[in-house]
């Protein structure tokens, strides 16, 4: 063993964490190398100093003061407020979704805005240099040329959704039997922070094409009960054999 490899394992050597053969090699090197021996002695001395740390008592007046201060605090109680807010959030989301899906079928389908043919004004011919009209009397074209929109907008004819029957959000899968409206999707996929943080849910959604998806949210908490990770999963759970909505 050379000095470099000994230095690398010297702490493990002192902690007695080396295998017998390696330990013997380090010991043999230390007998011959003064620099490594000095390093070993320094590490032993520092480690020995660390073991002198002993328990120290705080000042008596501080201990009494702290004791008084802690005793004055109100007794710890589980905070039901958080769960109350969670319940409120679930109810608000459920009511909002129900309202949205109730309102949606009443909305008559809007006619597709067909872009009217646009008349493009022809710019006035430039007066030639030999024109008899003076420059200051020439008229400029007043109509602004309208351009045809480059992108054609299409409005999809989605079949009007069927009435929704949605169970309250719970651990058990609930069924949403219609195409979710945009707001409904927002509520389902991006629930408010309180709901996102404090609830796990499991919602089954039937799409217009017959497929079914499972929206799932899981909360991972640490030992202090604080949420540390939120997993949102959208799974296709099949249902393609189901006929699509024939609502016209």
């Amino acid at each position, binding site marked *: 063993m050379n000095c470099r490899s000994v230095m690398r394992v010297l702490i493990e050597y002192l902690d007695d964490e080396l295998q017998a053969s390696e330990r013997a090699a380090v010991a043999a090197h230390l007998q011959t190398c003064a620099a490594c021996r000095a390093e070993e002695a320094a590490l032993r001395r520092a480690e020995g100093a660390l073991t002198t740390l002993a328990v*120290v008592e705080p000042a008596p007046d501080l201990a009494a003061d*702290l004791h008084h201060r802690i005793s004055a605090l109100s007794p710890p109680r589980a905070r039901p407020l958080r769960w109350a807010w969670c319940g409120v959030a679930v109810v608000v989301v459920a009511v909002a979704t129900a309202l949205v899906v109730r309102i949606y079928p009443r909305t008559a389908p809007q006619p597709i805005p067909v872009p009217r043919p646009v008349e493009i004004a022809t710019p006035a011919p430039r007066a030639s240099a030999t024109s008899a009209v003076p420059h200051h009397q020439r008229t400029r074209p007043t109509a602004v040329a309208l351009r045809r929109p480059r992108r054609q907008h299409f409005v999809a004819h989605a079949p009007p959704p069927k009435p929704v029957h949605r169970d309250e959000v719970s651990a058990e899968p609930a069924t949403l039997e219609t195409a979710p409206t945009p707001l409904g999707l927002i509520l389902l996929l991006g629930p408010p922070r309180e709901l996102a943080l404090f609830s796990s849910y499991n919602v089954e959604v039937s799409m217009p094409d017959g497929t079914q998806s499972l929206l799932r949210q899981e909360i991972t908490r640490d030992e202090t009960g604080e949420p540390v990770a939120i997993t949102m999963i959208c799974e296709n759970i099949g249902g393609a054999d189901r006929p699509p909505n024939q609502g016209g």
Partner: protein
Amino acid sequence: MPTSRRRQDEATTVARARQGDAAALDELYRRYRDQVYTLCLNLCGNREEAQDLLQETFVRAWRGLPRFAGRCMFSTWVYRIAVNLSRDAARRRRRAPDFVPSARVAHDSPVDDVRAALAGLQHPHRAVLVLRYFQSFSHKEIAECLHWSLSRVKVTLHRAKRAFKDSYLQMNSTKEAQP
């Protein structure tokens, strides 16, 4: 007292404290006050600040007791609060323009030299050394207390020992050079 019995006894006391039993809280406070105070003193190197940290640690533990799920020992949880508070205090202190790490530690005894050498280290190095040599924690217990992986604990402890050795030797050579 064996560890399992100590753990069970502690769990019983914590359960009583969670139900608002003032005597149980008083018992927990008396049991861990000196340990937490010394931990804070070793981490920050200053008695006044250690007293503040001790107070804040127990106030936070008392308020957060309903959230304590009991997956680790109460002492480990309290030590974690103290380590986190001392880390935050160290960050605030470092931002001070006239900050000199070891100047804040009194050099009245050899132990103060150790604390002064610790004060010159980075906070993670300080925390693992104190938990290892003062609290006599195993690698696994340190990992549990700091929410670290076992390999991170081992690597940090290895580096911390070398850093402390350099800091301690430098402090001693400086003292010997002074008249």
